[in-house]
């Protein structure tokens, strides 16, 4: 046995022998404790995720108590459905490729360069990711749509082309690549590359043989996440796609809400489920590879000021990309919300307080208050469920737990529309008659928040050295006390960050909420989408104004997070 192995191997219950005696167990050995922690998350997912989705699928595919799987072939045989499948796939691939192309230089710059305003810029590029997709769509419409900024300046409109969707996807996912890849890149020990240089490798060769293989899994993981998000894209495509372009998710919505063709919707849900399952399985595999092998150093020690024309040029390119792709759309959104027919002013914002528009039963401004309340409750649910799940997953263990890990990621990819509609038709009978309850909305939102909570907390929880807990135990702390004294202080920041993500995601949730939010209690994204669906300058302006408010709320919560975020808490998003 290697030196030190006797000390580290022992606490891992999985490596030890089966316990022969029932007594004398000083620490809980996985099993029971872990099952206990997992009980609530499992129940939560069973009742509020698996059950509604299954109910929808059953409603679509079961006729008079008999499954009609033949319908799957029928639906998939339709040429317009095939067209949707093809478009969904290729736009996701194209979006992923484009995002990597534009964001990888950004990842490098954020990882290895030190420059003024880096912290602010890091926050700025993350803002789009926490923005509601509806707002993203709105912002791009304002930039490159009919009557948009580019249209006014040069008469160019991109909203009828697929470019609008692709660029919006890049905008949305830029941060995923910068954070996932850049986070790791910053922690790679530059001395590894130096060692290769000393052994005779050229600069390029050293990068190719040392850094690239180390980054590979992170790039793959980021690419898969981007693919997942764009494959299931709803809000962005709903707004920018027009009648021409529809992803699976948009088609599911159309089939469910407009055509009431539940059979087709169920088949499409299953197709999306299968595709997402594959993507998540590959993702889990790359994550595991990433965890295993690398020697990491403090990110603060690897960055230095850019030198020479090449490095300054690269920095310039990245700053330009960020300005054109991220800052500009956000800026145009704000500008449009202030640009009234009577000149610049707050007229649209003022209109939000009245019911004159007629789009809702309540003034649109009420949506803000609704959204905040819902998001707070959703965040609380997500923290409890995700926190428990992350704690249960902390100990690296067998296939069962890893499977659970992947399972908890599913809500990121399974059709939110299906979940929302599933809520309506599944949770409508006692003992779970929640159809009329306000609680339904935060429940659906929490479902999307949980994966973020888990992904943020898991790396931090795993980073806590188990021997610190042992040190506390030897000094007289009970297991619970040891957790409170050792884990909690280290995890507190991660908990805050996770809460922030869950809050932002809940605030922006659209696909499920659009079904279950009641007309007298719309959320912000639903209100924006409704306003957009109506003609006229006033509605357009109000949509812009509401989007701006939503953006500011998200951006502010994110900026607050950046203050508490440390490098240790850099999760996977």
């Amino acid at each position, binding site marked *: 046995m290697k030196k030190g192995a006797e000390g580290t191997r022992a606490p891992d219950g999985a490596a030890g*022998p089966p316990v022969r005696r029932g007594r*004398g167990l000083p620490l809980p050995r996985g099993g029971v404790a872990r099952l206990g922690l997992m009980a609530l998350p499992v129940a939560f997912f069973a009742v509020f995720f698996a059950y509604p989705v299954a109910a929808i699928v059953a409603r679509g595919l079961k006729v008079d108590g008999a499954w009609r799987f033949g319908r799957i072939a029928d639906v998939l045989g339709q040429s317009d459905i095939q067209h949707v499948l093809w478009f969904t796939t290729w736009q996701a691939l194209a979006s992923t490729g484009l995002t990597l192309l534009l964001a990888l230089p950004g990842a490098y710059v954020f990882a290895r360069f030190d420059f003024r305003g880096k912290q602010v810029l890091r926050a700025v590029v993350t803002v789009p990711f926490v923005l509601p997709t509806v707002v993203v769509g709105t912002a791009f419409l304002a930039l490159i749509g009919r009557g948009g900024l580019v249209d006014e300046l040069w008469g160019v409109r991109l909203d009828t082309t697929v470019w609008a969707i692709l660029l919006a996807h890049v905008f949305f996912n830029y941060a995923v690549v910068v954070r996932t890849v850049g986070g790791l890149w910053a922690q790679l020990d530059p001395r590894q590359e130096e060692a290769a240089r000393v052994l005779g490798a050229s600069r390029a060769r050293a990068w190719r043989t040392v850094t690239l293989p180390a980054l590979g899994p992170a790039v793959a993981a980021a690419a898969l996440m981007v693919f997942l998000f764009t494959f299931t894209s709803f809000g962005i495509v709903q707004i920018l796609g027009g009648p021409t372009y529809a992803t699976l998710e948009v088609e599911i919505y159309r089939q469910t809400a407009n055509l009431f063709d539940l059979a087709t919707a169920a088949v499409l849900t299953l197709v999306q489920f299968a595709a997402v399952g594959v993507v998540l399985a590959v993702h889990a595999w790359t994550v595991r590879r990433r965890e295993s092998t690398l020697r990491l150093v403090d990110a603060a020690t690897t960055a230095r000021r850019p030198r020479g024309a090449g490095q300054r040029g690269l920095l310039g390119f990245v700053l330009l990309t960020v300005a054109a792709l991220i800052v500009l759309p956000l800026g145009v959104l704000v500008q449009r919300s202030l640009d009234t027919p009577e000149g610049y002013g707050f007229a649209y914002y003022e209109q939000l307080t009245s019911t004159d528009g007629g789009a809702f039963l309540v003034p649109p401004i009420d949506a803000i208050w609704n959204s905040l309340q819902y998001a707070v409750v959703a965040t609380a649910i997500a923290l409890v469920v995700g926190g428990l799940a992350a704690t249960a997953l902390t100990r690296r263990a067998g296939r069962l737990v890893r499977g659970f890990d992947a399972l908890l990621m599913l809500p990121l990819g399974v059709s939110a529309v299906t979940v929302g509609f599933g809520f309506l038709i599944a949770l409508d009978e006692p003992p779970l008659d929640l159809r009329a309850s306000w609680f339904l909305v935060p429940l659906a939102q929490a479902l999307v928040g949980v994966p973020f909570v888990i992904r943020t907390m898991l790396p931090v929880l795993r980073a806590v050295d188990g021997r610190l807990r*042992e040190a506390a135990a030897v000094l007289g702390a009970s297991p619970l006390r040891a957790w409170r004294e050792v884990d909690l202080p280290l995890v507190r920041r991660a908990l805050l960050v996770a809460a922030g993500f869950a809050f932002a995601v809940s605030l922006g949730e659209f696909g499920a909420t659009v079904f279950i939010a009641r007309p007298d209690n719309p959320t912000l994204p639903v209100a924006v989408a409704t306003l957009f669906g109506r003609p006229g300058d006033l509605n357009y302006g109000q949509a812009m104004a509401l989007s701006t408010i939503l953006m500011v709320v998200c951006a502010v919560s994110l900026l607050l997070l950046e203050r508490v975020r440390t490098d240790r808490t850099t999760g996977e998003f």
Partner: protein
Amino acid sequence: MTATAPAASGPGPLLRLDGATVRFGARAVLDAVDLAVAEHEIVCVLGPSGSGKSTLLRAVAGLQALDAGRIALAGHDQAGVPAHRRGVGLMFQDHQLFPQRDVAGNVAFGLRMRKVPRAEQALRVAELLDLVGLPGAQKRAVSALSGGEQQRVALARALAPRPRLLMLDEPLGQLDRSLRERLVAELRELFQELGTTVLAVTHDQGEAFALADRVVVMREGRIAQSGTPLEVWRRPADEFVARFLGFDNVVDATVTGGSAETVWGKVPVPQGTADGRCRLLVRPAGVRLTGADDGLACVVTGRTFRGTHVAVRLEPTGGEGAPRLEAACGLRDAPEPGARVGVRFAVEEIVVLRPGAAS
């Protein structure tokens, strides 16, 4: 054979292990270990990496469940007693200071767990920091401490709750030599002054001999030898212990009537050695160099300066495949490499090893 029950003063040993066994899979990391530590005794477990030393400490601390055997503290069986109720102290190999707390927060941790009043905590912390040579360090961040300082804080933290048994895992492992030598002397004085019962483990014989009242040598989960540092040093029980202590002049011998026949020629053996085959250790000090035509003819193949003496490596020239020898010579009279010398053996430096434990 491996049982070691020292003369314990009082009602019985403070710590007693009977047949303590821990298995990782099929491998026994602790293999039926019997060990007793008397109150106020300083016992040092010495052994190479992977000999089960750390597991021994973890088992006593309650961090590792036994697969068989029992552990008793002050006569009470510890089975089922969780780590936090055993009242023992453990200083971890890499300290495991709590990074989010300052020095005072670390040292006071055990006191807080025992609900000691705040004022008393502060007093005790100050007292301990004085004791370990870090007065006034209460507010310092542990990340800002040097290795030696962390060591001292870890020690203060382990001592603070006045554990009935203090266990140290490679206590001085990561320190540089001069600091180590100073600390080992300080620690011994400190423990004697406080009357602390100590069970330490280390792979460094110098550390073990300097610190311990009694040294226990472990090999592959079993106890190979136990005794005072002097006993172990002078009379290694078997070839494993001898080689672990750095003695390599080990040879097969056949004893007949007070002397032994070896490939190095005739070697005198201590009185009372039974006739028959055995393994003999000749400590380097017992390899005496004489004139080239006297005794075993050797050629000098190398010299290593060891501070107090010079280690001279010798290659016997006559015998076929006779193993090399090491001799300890004075600083002035060590021969040059290439020189031809004769070797005689001094009986007082010759040890008959227990059979059956070749390394």
